[in-house]
């Protein structure tokens, strides 16, 4: 064969007229044994002939083709000499059938092992597939919009108290500036409102839906799938586009196009388009209707006024950039607009605009001091890793059990080898065993995924469908099966096939003792340690996440949530009716206290700054959360007054009074807050100063993980947006709500009755963390389950292997306890080692996770202790079962066999 590789050196003629080198190489490497020389010789001669008859190119082509046909399996399997075995013989179909048959027999002979093997793998794979689907869903968030790569929202950052704050709201004049100055950087510019509730009615059908006001380019930018009407349906200010579900609930089977519907019981809007509902995993999925932005501008005074105000940052601006540009380029162009327009006023705040690409909205929308710093993507990677680890644990089980059983199979290997199997065939056999196991496990895993999908969706708050029709999914699963089978089967295959037949069959050669004896268990032990390191880390992580959530849940919120109901109001309808309704509600006995306010109890809607007070440090740029409230706000919420008093109708001067919270007092540095005057910091000194009449305890309105903002409660002068009702605790809440609804309906027959329990709304703030906690807990328990499954298998094997030893020990007088200790000790040591490795790793990661929260739990030693003791306990439980079983065995039986 050696002569072939340098064959071209002897080939007469110029070098470029030689046959293709790769074909020569292939021929020398794979030609049927015994035929190399003559084939090569004949082919060379043919080549010369082909060069003459068909030219150089044709000859090279024919040469390569001939080589390929000659080395293909079918042409040489017929000519093979019976005693010669190729390396590729294992690929023969008959052989594969044989492998599978033997694998199947092996599986069914040891039902217990097979069940542990397949079951463990199936669970691991199910988890991996589920997490894979979840990660895919997260990573493709917003991919419904065709141009998601080019769409961005404009964010702005500015310096606030020495720190750069980044937010997604922008002022209205920005839009005008972009259109006038930078028009060719953008394909679409769409100004939008926040998503808000609206009452839509047609005839006597009435629904409350969420939707947005948007500029006319929106349908094109979002590539909405129009079911009827035109994408240009927002050109007329009095038009509306509906999502299919909204249209269905309003019109049923009627054709909605061109119909007039009433919006918020006031405006007549013509339906100009129906678009398919935007799927769940998209930022605009709650936009179930779109009304032209112009409509909002025309009918909302403060929006109209904001046209030239760079100070009112209440709007959202979406853009699609032009084809020939990038997000970075556009950001660089537009970032300083505000400074260019109003340098003197804003230089200190250094406001900058930036484009946040649509792909980042959901996954990477955290900013730390002006720099993008991840976000949800961290959780996605975390779960991705967990999924990978759980699968790894399952594969480790497989490897462990297979190698542990190697001694049983060693004889089989020895016999096969001495009968004439070569190593590649044995590798093939073990790999096909692992393929069979993985394929069975995969079937079970798919069933598991399919069955648990709805529960998983509930747990993860997702709408993932099983992707039956997705070619990529099946492609990915195929690769996944192959990888898992190779990963799980490679070690046993390589290990078992390396036995030397003489030593195996003799029973105990030096080499065999080396392999199966003292150090044979070492890789297995390492794998067990790795398994438990992962499992215990997951347990510790789960405990800490759970504790963090509980800790925050138990945080004093500063008001009484139980029995507190919030009613959102539509603008306009409720003005001037507060007193009347309040009297009616209080009179009904269902409500014991009531107030009106500008924002929901569980959120801060407005911020204000630019105030002066006595003793204010120079150069102090204060900003407050600002809440307008009616008298009795403090009473209805059950807040605690620390100093001074609540607003009261008895003091007419209260219309210029404010309450501060404790944080605000500290923030302003007031020694004696009551009586302090707060003045607006403007030159003409217009407007009345506001007098502090009281201080209330801090109340958690925003994220319960963050510190409370300095807040100002001002006497409500304008229209309220929410009513707060304190239900009568002596009465059934359902009855009270029914009474409230009756009174509401009587006064506002045109409005649907909406209400929310504040404690539920507050609880919703924990949904993300709780979900992470639940998912992590779920996966952690699966991980420990899989690990224990492995331990169970291993220990039962160990016990079986040492049956004779145990029998002898028993005959010589060892007690069951002694034997139990003997068998359990080995595993306990492994788990303890795993725990020791876990502690620093878990400490590091959990500590850095907790740093995200200002209000957080401390890492205490007992969490680690609990996890470790728990792991040891579970290990003991698992191992003891087998150990005691083995120790109780009658020695007569175990010793009689040979």
């Amino acid at each position: 064969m050696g002569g072939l590789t340098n064959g071209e050196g002897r080939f007469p003629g110029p070098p470029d007229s030689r046959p293709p080198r790769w074909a020569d190489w292939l021929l020398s490497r794979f030609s049927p044994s015994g035929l190399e020389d003559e084939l090569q010789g004949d082919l060379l001669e043919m080549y010369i002939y082909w060069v003459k008859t068909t030219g150089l190119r044709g000859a090279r082509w024919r040469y390569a083709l001939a080589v390929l046909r000659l080395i293909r399996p079918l042409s040489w399997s017929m000519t093979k000499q019976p005693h010669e075995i190729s390396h590729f013989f294992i690929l023969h179909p008959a052989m594969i059938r044989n492998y599978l048959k033997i694998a199947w027999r092996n599986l069914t002979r040891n039902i217990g092992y097979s069940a542990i093997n397949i079951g463990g793998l199936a669970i691991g794979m199910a988890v991996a597939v589920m997490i894979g689907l979840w990660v895919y869903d997260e990573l493709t968030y917003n991919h419904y919009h065709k141009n998601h790569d080019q769409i961005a929202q404009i964010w702005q950052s500015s310096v606030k108290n020495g720190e750069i704050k980044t937010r997604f709201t922008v002022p209205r004049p920005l839009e005008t500036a972009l259109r006038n100055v930078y028009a060719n950087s953008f394909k679409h510019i769409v100004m939008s409102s926040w998503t808000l509730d609206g009452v839509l009615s047609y005839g006597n059908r009435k629904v409350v839906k969420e939707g947005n006001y948007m500029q006319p380019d929106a349908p094109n930018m979002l590539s909405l799938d129009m079911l009827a009407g035109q994408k240009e349906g927002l050109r007329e200010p009095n038009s509306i586009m509906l999502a299919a579900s909204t249209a269905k609930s309003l019109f049923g089977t009627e054709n909605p196009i061109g119909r007039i519907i009433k919006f918020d019981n006031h405006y007549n809007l013509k339906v100009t388009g129906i678009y398919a509902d935007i799927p769940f995993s998209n930022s605009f999925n709650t936009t179930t209707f779109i009304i032209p932005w112009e409509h909002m501008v025309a009918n909302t005074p403060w929006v109209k006024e904001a046209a030239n105000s760079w100070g009112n940052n209440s709007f959202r601006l979406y853009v699609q950039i032009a084809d020939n540009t990038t997000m970075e380029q556009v950001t660089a162009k537009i970032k300083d607009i505000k400074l260019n327009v109003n340098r003197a006023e804003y230089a200190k705040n250094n406001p900058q605009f930036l484009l946040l690409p649509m792909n980042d909205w959901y996954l990477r929308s955290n900013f730390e001091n002006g720099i993008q710093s991840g976000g949800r993507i961290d959780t996605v990677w975390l779960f991705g890793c967990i999924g990978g680890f759980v699968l790894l644990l399952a594969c480790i089980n497989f490897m462990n059990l297979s190698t542990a059983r190697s001694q049983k199979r060693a004889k089989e290997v020895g016999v096969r080898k001495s009968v004439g199997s070569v190593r590649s065939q044995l590798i093939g056999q073990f790999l096909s065993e692992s393929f069979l196991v993985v394929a069975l496990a995969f079937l079970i895993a798919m069933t598991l995924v399919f069955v648990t999908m709805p529960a998983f969706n509930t747990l993860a708050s997702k709408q993932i469908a099983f992707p039956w029709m997705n070619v990529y999914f099946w492609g990915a699963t195929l690769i996944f099966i192959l990888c898992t089978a190779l990963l799980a089967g490679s070690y046993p295959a390589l290990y078992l096939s390396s036995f030397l037949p003489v030593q195996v069959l003799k029973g105990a050669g030096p080499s065999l003792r080396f392999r199966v004896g003292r150090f044979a268990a070492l890789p297995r032990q390492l794998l067990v340690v790795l398994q438990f390191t992962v499992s215990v880390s997951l347990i510790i992580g789960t405990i800490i996440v759970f504790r963090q959530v509980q800790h925050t849940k138990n945080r004093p919120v500063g008001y009484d949530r139980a029995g507190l109901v919030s009613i959102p109001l539509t603008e306009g309808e409720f003005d001037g009716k507060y007193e009347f309704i309040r009297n009616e509600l209080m009179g009904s006995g269902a409500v014991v206290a009531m107030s009106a306010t500008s924002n929901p109890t569980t959120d801060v809607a407005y911020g204000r700054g630019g105030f002066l007070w006595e003793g204010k440090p120079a150069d102090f740029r204060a900003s407050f959360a600002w809440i307008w409230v009616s008298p009795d706000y403090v009473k209805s919420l059950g807040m605690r007054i620390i100093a001074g008093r609540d607003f009261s109708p008895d003091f007419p001067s209260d219309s210029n009074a404010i309450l501060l919270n404790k944080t605000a007092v500290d923030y302003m540095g007031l020694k004696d807050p009551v009586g302090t005057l707060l003045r607006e910091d403007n030159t003409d000194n217009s407007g009345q100063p506001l007098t502090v009449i009281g201080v209330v305890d801090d109340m958690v309105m925003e994220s319960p993980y963050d510190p409370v903002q300095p807040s100002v409660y001002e006497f409500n002068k304008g229209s309220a947006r929410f009513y707060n009702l304190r239900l009568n605790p002596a009465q059934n809440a359902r009855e009270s709500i029914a009474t409230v609804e009756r009174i509401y309906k009587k006064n506002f027959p045109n409005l649907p009755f909406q209400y929310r329990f504040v404690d539920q709304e507050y609880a919703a703030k924990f949904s993300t963390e709780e979900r992470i906690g639940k998912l992590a807990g779920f996966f952690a328990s699966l991980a420990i389950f899989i690990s224990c499954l492995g331990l169970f298998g291993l220990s039962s094997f160990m016990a079986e292997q040492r049956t004779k030893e145990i029998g002898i020990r028993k005959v010589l007088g060892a007690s069951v306890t002694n034997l139990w200790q003997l068998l359990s000790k080995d595993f306990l040591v492994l788990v303890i080692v795993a725990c020791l490795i876990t502690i620093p790793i878990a400490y590091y990661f959990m500590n850095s996770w907790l740093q995200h929260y200002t209000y957080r739990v401390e890492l205490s030693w007992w969490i680690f202790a609990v996890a470790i003791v728990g792991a040891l306990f579970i290990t003991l439980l698992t191992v003891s079962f087998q150990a005691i079983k083995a120790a109780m065995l009658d020695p007569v039986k175990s010793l009689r066999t040979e």
Partner: protein
Amino acid sequence: MKRACLGELEEVVLLTVAVLQESAYCASITQTIDQQMARSISFPTVHTTLQQLQKSGLLFSPMSGATAQQGGRQKRLFTLTTAAQRFLIEYRRADVRQIRAHLWDGPAIRQISTQVLLLWEA
């Protein structure tokens, strides 16, 4: 002997081996068929056929000395075994040819539909 009759390709190859006598080896056989029959035949096909014929005991294949033409390698020469010679004689016999001729020119040909015949003519 496994085979009761020969296919056309096998017959041609056997005959070519007989014609080439001392210098029948895979490359020369391929080239001869290629030229004589005015039809293209691929090297692997001939190679496979030769292997099969050898397996059936119709060919005997000693190795030759190395030649420069083959890049200094030995080549496998093929000669007919007696079985093969008998086979070819059988095939040449008049009755076999007659059967063929009869089939071609006899009533059987009329069973073939006219459309197919037309196609063939074209």
